[in-house]
Structures are given as structure tokens and as C-alpha cells.
């Protein structure tokens, strides 16, 4: 699946989105791609996911996220080719 902001006209960034555990169950997918207008942040990507994917609204507005396997904040800008991971509350150990 590939989700794109319908009104997009300017330069865009494409990111791979990965969902894990409970979030993968909610969305019914473990991976998708997302295309957003530049400049875009993690928060913009989450907003688009919540509005465009079936059951997306069941994701929290500010989930724990990682870009390229590092924890980041919602305000972090996205670069083309980033791997954006949606992390449910952690439960290691």
C-alpha cells in the first residue's frame, strides 16, 4: 500500500512506515509507504496515517516513534527514504 496526501503538489518526501505489535494488529499491516509534502515532520506523518489508513484513528496522536532505528520526538523532520517506526508502549525485559 502507498498513501499520499491528495492535495500534494510541491516536492515530497517518501518514507517507509513500520508498525509493530499492537499497532500492527490495529492497522492490519506491518509496513507501508507514505508520501508527504516537504517539509514534513513525524507528527505530519502520524496525522496522515490516522486519517488515511483504515483504523488509523485508533493510533495515538503522539505515539512513540523512531527514525532509522533511533528514538525521536514528534517534531523531528522527515528525510526522503527514512524508515519511520511506530512503537507501542515498550515492554522489554
Amino acid at each position, binding site marked *: 500500500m502507498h498513501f499520499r496526501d491528495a492535495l500534494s503538489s510541491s516536492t515530497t518526501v517518501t518514507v517507509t512506515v*513500520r508498525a*509493530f*505489535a*499492537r499497532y500492527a494488529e490495529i492497522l492490519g499491516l506491518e509496513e507501508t509507504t507514505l508520501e508527504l509534502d516537504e517539509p514534513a515532520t513525524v507528527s505530519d506523518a502520524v496525522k496522515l496515517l490516522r486519517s488515511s489508513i483504515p483504523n488509523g484513528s485508533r493510533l495515538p496522536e503522539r505515539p512513540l516513534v*523512531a527514525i532509522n*532505528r*533511533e*528514538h525521536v520526538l514528534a517534531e523531528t523532520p522527515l528525510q526522503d527514504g527514512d524508515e519511520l*517506526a511506530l*512503537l*507501542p*508502549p*515498550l*515492554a*522489554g*525485559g
Partner: protein
Amino acid sequence: MSFVTRQPIDGAALLAQVADPGLGGTALFVGSVRRGKEDGPVEAIEYSAYETMLEEEFGRIVTEIRSRWREARVVGVHRLGRIPAGEISIAVAAAAPHRAEAFAACRHAIEEAKKRLPVWKKEIFQDGSEAWRDNESRLA
């Protein structure tokens, strides 16, 4: 070295990995699957992870420890998959010249691991029902 295994964890093997004649104190933390009782007896926990990130994040924790306790040696391993109650899910060993640094480094490793590793667990109860469980709160 990988921080992930799907086999039973051997604490003694971790102790051997950090052993060094110059390091006189070694601390080993071992976390096991707890039977629990709030929702009924837990039979096992199914652990899943974002494995590539788990490896990198554990590596970053080890790097932090090496910069803070320069002489310490630390190793850790997290088991994934279905782990029966009573068996080890995570183990961390830290060796240092003296016990204070060994305890501190070991404590740092396990506390940061619990806070930062992208790992999830689903409790499997004796009646066959299942529930996601995180480190902060109980999920509906």
C-alpha cells in the same frame, strides 16, 4: 555480537564473557517471566521486537556505559519468542575493578534497556487468553 537470542539464556555464559583478571567485581542481573496473578496465572510471554533497532539501541547503551565507567565490561542478551513462566527473558552482566562500578554499570544497562529497547510482550494465560502488557501500565 548479537543481543538477541531465541534460545534459553545461560547467566554463567555471560559471566564468562566479562571475566577478566583486572576486574574484581561482577554484577549479573537476570529477569524472568513472572507467573503473576492479577489476570490469572501467566503460562508464558510471547516477546517480539523491532530487532534491527534493538541491536543498535543495546549497542548505544553499551557505548554509554563504556564512556561513563571506562574500565567496565558489559554484555547483555534479550530472548525473544515464547518464553515459559520462570525462564529468563533478559540478562545483563557488568564487570569492573570494584563492586560499586559493577553494580552501577549493571543497573544502568537494565534500567535503560527497560526504557529504550523496542520489545513487546503478550501474556498468554493458562486459560489460553492473551493480553498485551507494557512496562508502564496494564493495557485493556
